[in-house]
């Protein structure tokens, strides 16, 4: 096939602007799926994607159209999965930038558009959901113009739902998106832009062929890892994998090459012929690093093996989260896991629980820290207990993210207050027309992992959106906030915090514990401390009375069951010294709703 027969494009947008729905429409229109096979958001195949109605993993499909071959990649909209978008961009020459015209331009619209332009892609702006009664295409258009510099006549208008305007989209893909460049006759080179794991066939690598062609039986080398393998199968997505004889330059598809685990592949790596010693790697891209960490423990200690199996299995499918065993005095054996962001953390946890049936206790999340020790050594800290004693710390640094928040102008005041409270540093403020403002702040990542997004939503009455990217590490006055129960530090509850905030946070944690730890036969002292200095304390008074007055023939069973329930609750508690701490206590520490109510 000739290179000019291909058009490779992805669909990018803010969450829920209709990427997957537009992909559906294109699949139907080009006859790749029939009406009978069709279901909404057909490319969202994971259970969790279907339940939550969001895309988590990018997926591809090949569409025949007007004698050409169009390769489409549907991408996720959520900020935690922006690495999926960035990988996908490398397989494409163009992108459809979708904007829900009832919502207008939002944070990921801007972030993804910048990313695509940086990757050298041709952007085709598309206003979606024009069928909606609340649609304001004029406003969205203005924002696209003011914020991203598009001219009105290049913007398409569609309804992914009704199909209106979809032919225009296909036409624009053909006419405006350039065909790939490359040399079909040169030795093979392909960019590995994604991978997934299949129980039967092992790792399936997703590739964009740049030069030459890939076919079954040939030996290939992965340049970064040096691994050499025989190609067992090449294929395309329709949208289910379908084996083909060859995958030529310019095309997008998959390769199965007897790779057992995702650990053995590097996304961004280059595939070349095993015999081609001169092969140069194509400029790839960096794998995202986990930025948010938390401990994950089984609610009942005997489930640890189950949990391990589930984590290992999930890791095969999602190599972007990291894990290694850890143990905590209070929680026993578990794992310290790293995630790309808070939604990623939530999703991994939900998948683990669902797929293993093991109930999970999660410890308070923390970000990665850098510590410069007095001996000049630099260390990365993934959990509060790894922190050296304060007299060995020369400098304590935390990750800073540049955060872009888009909102209606009347929310600026509230948002600035929020950012200032969260130790933010103002960077700039730009208008996308009169109805949208982009506010940019540098914020400590730690300040936004737990609840920032919810707060932003409520400060902007639901209209605000955000996007962020890591800009680096910065020295900060951080301390380890220790939580002590009856004089014993509970490692799983201790957190790293900014000094100014530690007092308030300490109070919150102590109050949350007081509410969730049931009274026991003795007084329980709760303390929050930095080093030896106690910032907050509370006492849970000893249980004085717990007795059912009546118990006769008729109530024996009922009373016994009530008591059994009390006991059942107790079994699931964790012991610190002689104090039993229920699982809710560990979760309550994460819950900052109380604090919000006060405001």
């Amino acid at each position, binding site marked *: 096939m000739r290179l000019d027969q291909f058009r490779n494009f992805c669909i990018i947008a803010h969450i829920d602007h209709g990427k997957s729905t537009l992909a559906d429409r294109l699949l139907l229109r080009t006859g790749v799926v029939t009406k009978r096979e069709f279901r909404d958001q057909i490319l969202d195949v994971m259970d969790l994607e279907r339940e939550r109605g969001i895309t988590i993993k990018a997926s591809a499909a090949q569409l025949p159209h007007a004698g050409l071959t169009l390769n489409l990649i549907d991408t996720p909209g959520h900020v935690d999965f922006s690495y999926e978008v960035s990988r996908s961009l490398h397989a494409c020459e163009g992108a459809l930038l979708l904007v829900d015209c009832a919502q207008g331009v939002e944070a990921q619209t801007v972030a993804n558009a910048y990313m695509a332009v940086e990757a050298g892609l041709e952007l085709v702006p598309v206003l979606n959901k024009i069928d909606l009664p609340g649609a304001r295409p004029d406003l969205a258009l203005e924002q696209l113009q003011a914020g991203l510099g598009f001219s009105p006549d290049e913007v398409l208008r569609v309804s992914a739902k009704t199909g209106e305007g979809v032919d225009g989209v296909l036409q624009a893909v053909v006419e405006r998106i350039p065909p790939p460049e490359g040399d079909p006759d040169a030795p093979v080179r392909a960019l590995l832009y994604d991978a997934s794991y299949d129980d039967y066939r092992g790792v399936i690598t997703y590739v964009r062929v740049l030069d030459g062609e890939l076919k079954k039986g040939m030996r290939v080398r992965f340049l970064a890892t040096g691994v050499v393998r025989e190609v067992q199968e090449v294929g395309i997505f329709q949208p289910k994998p379908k084996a083909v004889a060859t995958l030529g330059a310019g095309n997008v598809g998959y390769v199965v090459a007897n790779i057992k685990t995702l650990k053995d592949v590097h996304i961004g790596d280059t595939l070349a012929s095993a015999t081609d010693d001169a092969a140069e790697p194509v400029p790839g891209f960096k794998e995202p690093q986990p930025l948010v960490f938390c401990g994950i423990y089984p609610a009942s200690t005997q489930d640890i093996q189950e949990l391990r199996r589930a984590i290992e299995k999930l890791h095969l499918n999602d190599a972007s989260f990291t894990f290694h065993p850890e143990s905590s005095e209070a929680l026993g054996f578990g794992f310290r896991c790293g995630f790309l962001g808070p939604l990623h953390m939530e999703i991994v946890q939900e998948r683990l629980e669902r797929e293993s049936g093991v109930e999970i206790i999660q410890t308070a999340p923390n970000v990665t820290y850098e510590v410069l020790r007095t001996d000049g050594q630099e260390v990365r800290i993934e959990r509060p207990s790894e922190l050296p004693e304060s007299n060995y710390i020369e400098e304590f640094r935390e990750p800073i993210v540049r955060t872009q928040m888009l909102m209606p102008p009347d929310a600026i005041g509230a948002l600035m207050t929020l950012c200032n409270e969260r130790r933010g540093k103002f960077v700039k403020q730009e208008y996308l027309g009169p109805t949208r403002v982009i506010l940019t702040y540098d914020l400590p990542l730690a300040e936004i992992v737990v609840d920032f997004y919810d707060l932003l939503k409520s400060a902007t009455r639901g209209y605000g959106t955000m996007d962020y990217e890591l800009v680096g590490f910065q020295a900060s006055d951080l301390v380890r906030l220790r939580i002590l129960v009856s004089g014993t530090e509970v490692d799983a509850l201790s957190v790293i915090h900014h000094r100014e905030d530690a007092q308030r946070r300490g109070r919150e944690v102590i109050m949350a514990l007081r509410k969730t730890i049931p009274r026991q*036969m003795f007084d329980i002292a709760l303390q929050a401390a930095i080093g030896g200095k106690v910032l907050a304390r509370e006492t849970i008074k000893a*249980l*004085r*009375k*717990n*007795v*059912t*007055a*009546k*118990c*006769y*023939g*008729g109530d*024996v*069973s009922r009373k*016994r069951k009530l*008591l*059994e329930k*009390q*006991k059942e609750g*107790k079994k699931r508690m964790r012991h610190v010294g002689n104090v039993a701490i229920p699982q809710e206590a560990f979760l309550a520490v994460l819950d900052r709703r109380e604090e919000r109510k006060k405001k």
Partner: protein
Amino acid sequence: MTPTVYVHIPFCETKCPYCDFNSFAVQGRDVDGYLAALSEELDRRPPPPDPPTLFIGGGTPTVPRPEQIDRYLGDLLRRLRPDPAREFTVEANPGSLTAEKVAVLAAHGVNRVSLGAQSFLDRHLKTLGRVHSAAQIEEAFRLVRDGGIDNVNLDLIFAVPGLDLRDWLYTLDCAVALQPEHLSCYALIFEPGTEFHARRQRGLMHALDEEDELRMFRFTERRLRHAGWQRYEISAFARPGKHCRHNLGYWRNEPYAGYGAGAFSYLDGERCGNERHLERYARAVHERGDAFVSHERLEGSRAAAETIFLGLRTRYGVRLDSVGERHGIDAQREFAPVVTRLREQGLLRRGEPLRMTRRGWRVADTVSSAFL
């Protein structure tokens, strides 16, 4: 062991707002129809002819008319061998009790009456939604005594919202002055499904402060001990030899046969509950010969734990060796860690039988649940 017999009469003058028993205001109810179903149940599921004790409870068994009381007592006793020495208790409420009704009870050999007194302060009787006055308690008490029934219990409730220690001691003093053989003192419980519970949920009513309640609990024991009553179960106080044998059977986890709507039976190690709804109960008895809607059989250590939890409620406690023997487990070994821990916490006394300390009684549920 021969089971004791319990008969449930589910009618009351009005429904008290704190009560979660299977009881209904009698107004508009088909009492005769219910008694017929009860009689049929006794026919089709005959009670043991020589039960060690009989207990008619409710509801208020003395709310039906005298001839109705006469009928159900006759229906029951017809099926048993006479035994004048057997403890035979009927629950009654001041207000609905008359000399005529007491005479009917006495004529059938009833030798113990349990009176729902609750309080000797009209103000608290009102809070509790009771339809009788303090004066009527004393009248009812006299009627029982005059009718020749010489074993009387008074039920009293403390920890009522608005009640302070002085009020409670006043009620206790009034009760003591009547010289009953037995006193049951209950802390008010906000049971789910009751009106009180709903009111508390809505914030219209508040439980008494725990410390106040605890003080009342402690003072009760002191006051009654000095006056000659012995606490032999968490809520039960008796003059020497006057403990309630029927209730002790429950706390020893011994068998019983229950009749009537919502009554429970515990026979051959199986606990079965009757249908609570009156018409459905009658229909079930008629159609199937019994009205059981729940069945439960515990084995091994769960059964043993239940025996322990019940037995610990009494001052006699439980012997682990006999519990083990009864349920076919090595109870000594099985429960050794729990026992050790509870002893260390000062909740169980040392030595056999296992008995709670005074501190243990205050937190009896915590102690019991450790065994479950």
